[in-house]
């Protein structure tokens, strides 16, 4: 395991930070102050839309136009929340539920599949393995949005348009996940353990589920997190394969609301408050799982 951690997470969070912490604290130099100020300015830039969203979600429609955008006016947050949740008999909650379902179940499936594929690519020697690997890498280079129309044509031919499957099935193949799992299995699951299990009479399926999966948990969490994000953020595919608004994910729902806000300014507060509500789960997920996304990106950079 030590080998793995040096390879995968070694460059990320903990050792790196402690390395710098060892350095003696220097007195505040002008360079330090200027650099920090520049960084704070950049941080403000990243926060601007978020701050505006938070302030705007507390305002009445009239105040949205008349009060200063980066501060509070009369607080109408609860009323705004109400407009979000009563919209068309609670369709917003349904959109959130759909997003959670697509992203939750989809990324769970994608993670399992990626683990199995990564495991076989790392541990089994079969004809054409390298060719297959190159092929999958090629697959990474064709972006999802370019595949959206072809996927639509495919789903249309098999009659899955406007079903949950239309969003769910295409999200199962995580090429990034396969790569990460392959690297991780190769370095963290010793051949001897698999051999020993085989000698003891364990079947291949059992070995995979009871031994391999347990040894690669950190990689699995990372793959899960990144597929969760990419499915949650998915927009183009749902836009073209789902007509029924009751099956929409929240991204698509908010987009359609934003469009109708053009003709009805009163909807703006609903769009803003809905956006706030829809981003909270992901931001929490991110803050809680910091260690994992940092190590995931590190692995990507070292690949």
């Amino acid at each position, binding site marked *: 395991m030590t080998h793995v951690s040096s390879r995968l997470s070694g460059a990320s969070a903990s050792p790196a930070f402690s390395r710098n912490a060892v350095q003696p604290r220097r007195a505040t130099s002008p360079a330090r102050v200027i650099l920090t100020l520049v960084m704070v300015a950049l941080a403000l830039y990243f926060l601007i839309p978020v701050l505006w969203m938070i302030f705007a979600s507390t305002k009445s429609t009239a105040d949205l136009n008349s009060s200063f955008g980066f501060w509070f006016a009369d607080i109408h947050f609860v009323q705004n929340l109400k407009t979000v949740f009563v919209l068309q008999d609670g369709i917003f909650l349904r959109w959130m539920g759909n997003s959670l379902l697509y992203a939750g179940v989809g990324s769970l499936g994608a993670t399992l599949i990626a683990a199995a594929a990564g495991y076989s690519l790392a541990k089994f020697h079969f004809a054409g393995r390298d060719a297959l690997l190159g092929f999958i890498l090629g697959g990474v280079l064709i972006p999802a949005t370019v595949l959206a129309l072809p996927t639509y044509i*495919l789903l249309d031919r098999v009659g899955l348009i406007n079903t949950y499957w239309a969003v769910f099935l295409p999200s199962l193949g995580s090429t990034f996940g*396969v790569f990460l799992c392959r690297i991780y299995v190769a370095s963290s699951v010793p051949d001897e353990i698999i051999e020993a299990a085989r000698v003891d009479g364990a079947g291949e399926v059992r070995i995979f589920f009871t031994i391999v999966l347990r040894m690669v948990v950190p990689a699995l969490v990372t793959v899960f997190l990144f597929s969760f994000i990419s499915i*949650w953020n998915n927009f183009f595919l749902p836009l073209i394969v789902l007509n029924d608004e009751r099956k929409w994910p929240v991204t698509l729902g908010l987009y359609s609301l934003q469009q109708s806000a053009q003709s009805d300014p009163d909807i703006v507060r609903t769009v803003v408050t809905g956006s706030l509500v829809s981003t909270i789960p992901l931001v929490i997920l991110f803050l809680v799982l910091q260690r994992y996304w940092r190590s995931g990106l590190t692995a990507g*950079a070292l690949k």
Partner: protein
Amino acid sequence: MLPFLLIFVTFHIIPIFFAVQESLFRQQSSGLGLGESVRQFVGLGNYTRAFGDSTLYAAGGRVLLYGVVQVPIMLFLALGMALAFDSALVHARQFLQVVAFLPYAIPGVIGAILWAFLYVPGISPIVSLLQDIGAPSDFLSPRAVLWSIANVSTWQWTGYNMIIIFAALQALPRDIFEAARVDGAGAWRVAWSIKIPLVLPAILLTALFSIIGTLQLFSEPLVLKTLTGNVTYNYTPNMMVYNLAFGTNDTGYASAVSVVIAAVTFIASIVVLRLLQKRGSQ
């Protein structure tokens, strides 16, 4: 392995075949526009049409201009921030990193919607501030709107790229820098002559992701399109595909354009990957 292969082949390989197949046909509505439309084999007709289509060239040129400007600015920002964080000269480092990464956790469409509100006069505090000091404030004018879109992507992806480069920087052995410092190299010199060359693979990787991202530009302009006529249905190649397929039902031609975008993306990626491998083998 099998399940992944199945999914991979079904949703990565087969669609491409379908797209290629579909791109050889054309839907033609019969006569008066009544009744069934006729599917007609046109061979490479859709491709010759694509290569002579000024709308497609305009969309492609726009994305090219966008990429040439936005990608370097974003990566420069990301690299600068990563170096600053790596130098340990910044206070509250971890907090600032999380803030920079925050936009990545916000779905692209939502980010675009939020910025859209910040571009519209009336609601936007930024526009009214600019108006107060008499600065130009029309984010949606024909010339400005492309850069307003670029701002959304820069906002969204700088932190993500920064973390990738930062992670690569942190993985470098520290003793090289000590040695350089002993030899009298200043912080700038160390960053320029040692750190940047060593993390070049990570920078190229972020460049690869960014180029792919640029070529798929879709949801940001689509969101801004509701606000201004200056973003048309054919603003980017991907929007053009969407419009052709679902606005005008010209699936064959849409597929051909899709195939062309895929091919261009693929070639661009291969070029960057080659650079990456060349650096790696040195």
